[in-house]
């Protein structure tokens, strides 16, 4: 097995890539973009093949007993790496906030929690990236997925009265040629919500269409975000109605226009 840590000071860290289960199966290009982006910023990236799912679907449905074995397996898989990075805010929120309740005695719990990051958070906070090299000439709307927004605090948010910040937007704004457009409701939920998307189909779809409309009014040609699950929902709605908008994960946008 490859080393889980960079041994010399000053050497870039070893990053274990966590690819959420549905990204692995349905959106491999997002995982590839994440991998490339991390490598481009000097990381040594490995993909531990034992990984499957962080357990979020079960945990958020209240099925703690079904989620716990997956949490333990995740901690086994990712123990000891310098950093674990995932192109998903909600999976990282799961590890950080729900694992203490699901695998309280796991020896790697605190170490893995402390070293697991959402991709943009990692670039911004850990690698200190303030400028992303690349070109993305389009009008882009950022969908601020709720778990990244309110569990990971990737941005200050519209509700709280704190000094404004927005890590994802900061990174996106440095791309050459990009025009960021803001919907009128800057961080409203898209209505995906895991099993909510199916059990509360009516409200879920109305919420999603409302987000698409808001972004369309702002002039977005592309909608991007940190969570492919929200984007899958928005993309599904947009394609059904043949809306002229492209939905891309933020890793794909940050990588710049494909050659």
């Amino acid at each position, binding site marked *: 097995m490859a080393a889980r840590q960079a041994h010399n000071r000053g050497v870039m860290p070893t990053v274990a890539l966590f690819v959420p289960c549905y990204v692995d*199966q349905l959106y491999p290009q997002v995982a590839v973009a994440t991998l490339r982006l991390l490598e481009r910023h000097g990381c040594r990236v490995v993909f531990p*093949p034992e990984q499957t799912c962080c357990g979020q679907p079960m945990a*958020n*449905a*209240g099925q703690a007993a079904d989620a716990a074995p997956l949490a333990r397996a995740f901690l086994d898989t990712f123990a000891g790496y310098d950093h674990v990075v995932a192109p998903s805010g909600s999976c990282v929120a799961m590890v950080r906030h729900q694992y203490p309740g699901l695998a309280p005695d796991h020896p790697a719990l605190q170490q893995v929690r402390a070293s697991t990051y959402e991709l943009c958070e990692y670039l911004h906070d850990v690698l200190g990236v303030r400028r992303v090299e690349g070109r993305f000439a389009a009008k882009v709307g950022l969908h601020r997925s709720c778990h990244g927004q309110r569990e990971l605090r990737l941005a200050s948010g519209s509700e*709280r009265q704190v000094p404004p910040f927005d890590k994802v937007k900061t990174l996106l704004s440095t791309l050459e040629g990009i025009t960021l457009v803001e919907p009128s409701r800057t961080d*409203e939920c898209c209505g995906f*919500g895991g099993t909510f998307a199916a059990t509360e189909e009516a409200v879920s779809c109305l919420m999603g269409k*409302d987000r698409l409309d808001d972004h369309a009014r702002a002039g977005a040609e592309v909608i991007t975000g940190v969570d492919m699950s929200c984007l899958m929902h928005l993309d*599904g709605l947009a394609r059904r109605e043949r809306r002229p908008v492209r939905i891309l994960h933020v890793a794909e946008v940050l990588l710049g226009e494909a050659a």
Partner: protein
Amino acid sequence: MSAPSDAAVAAGAGAPPPVHHPGGRQAGPYPGHPAAAARFTADVARAHWHDESLWFVRVKRDRAAAQLPAWERLRELAEQIKAHALANLAGYLEEFERNATARGATVHWARDAADHNRIVHELLSARGVTRVVKSKSMLTEECGLNPYLEARGVEVVDTDLGERIVQFRGEPPSHIVLPAIHIKKEEIGALFHEKLGTAAGASDPKYLTEAARGHLREKFLAAQAGITGVNFAVADTGAVVVCTNEGNADMGTALPPLHIACMGLEKLVPRAEDLGVFLRLLARSATGQPVTTYSTHFLGPKPGGELHLVLVDNGRSALLARDPFRRALSCIRCGACMNTCPVFRRSGGYSYGTTVPGPIGSVLGPAQGPGAHATLPFASTLCGSCADVCPVRIDLHHQLLAWRRELVAGGHAPAGKTLALRVTAWIFASPWRFAAAGRLARAALRLLPRGLVARLSGAWGRQRELPAPPAESFRDLYRRTHGRP
């Protein structure tokens, strides 16, 4: 009408037969949140109108909050004061009772809704009261006071304009601060035409409000007693504070000699100085105003009058024992969590089937009996906006998640969904099974006709396309390009 039993009244048997209004409460048994919400959203234009109305209030809240540099500090203090008060509630209630009694008020204790209704009725009937005006009180809604009193020959007039509107329609409030937020002005115009004789087709809010003012002025002048809710009760003074914009609590208590104030036990704050924290937060959170127009402090009966305070438990002491749900007792009923909730805004207050709807209602509802309210904690995307607007920082979305765990553990979640996720978890438990299942599913998605896939994908596929499946998963691609690490 013959006097039905207390239990029948509590169940709504004394209420007039429900009439169906567009966007109004549906007749028949509560079908659970998904079905009730689907009915409300079926009228997309109306759902959007409802959403925009409440979003407008949310935006006003944001602006009001932004004016206070200490906003987040105030929220922290409010949270701590409430946590402190709840941890010492028995002692503070005794202190409150001592002080209120010393000032000439009479304190009554009610174990439950039946106690509460009986106490209020006895106070009224002992004084021969048959005409009562009432200002907003979610507690009396919770206890079903109106039908109880009406069944005993007492006329109860809700005097908050929004509450009067829903009372005319035979509905409960659909929102705790904006009781008639689900009703359009044209519908109110038609209602007032029928009930108050306003001009047919009139829908100007100013005109309709003026008509209600005249109508309710008569009721105020004729009332023999005023009932109010309580926003805050203060242990160190024995004061109760009632906040309104319309002035209806003041009108209702200033004229008749008898004032009955009904409050849940959790309304207590330790000291008068705490009010500064809560009054700065309450109206800003509720409507975006810097403070309500009337924040009235009752410190005893008026000369020659009586002040009765009815303290109601009705499940609150039991909830205090339950971690983490006890935090819901900190709620100051500002309604901000409803205004920000993307589900509430689109599904309407009646989709919750509870007296207090929305995020806080979905936490309180299951505590009263999980069976009937089992769908509520799942009626959320867990987006967390509610927790970030809540002026007392209740971690509402985490509470909803905690309820999901309790409901699943208690067998109250839909069996089909639970089983599906259990099987999925079993597949995920092995990287091999996961990879194999993924390959199978992707192949199926690619090979089956699109229409069939849409049908098989059920609730997902009715309005959404499934992702276009790639030929290769990332793990397969990675193994091919990188080999085993």
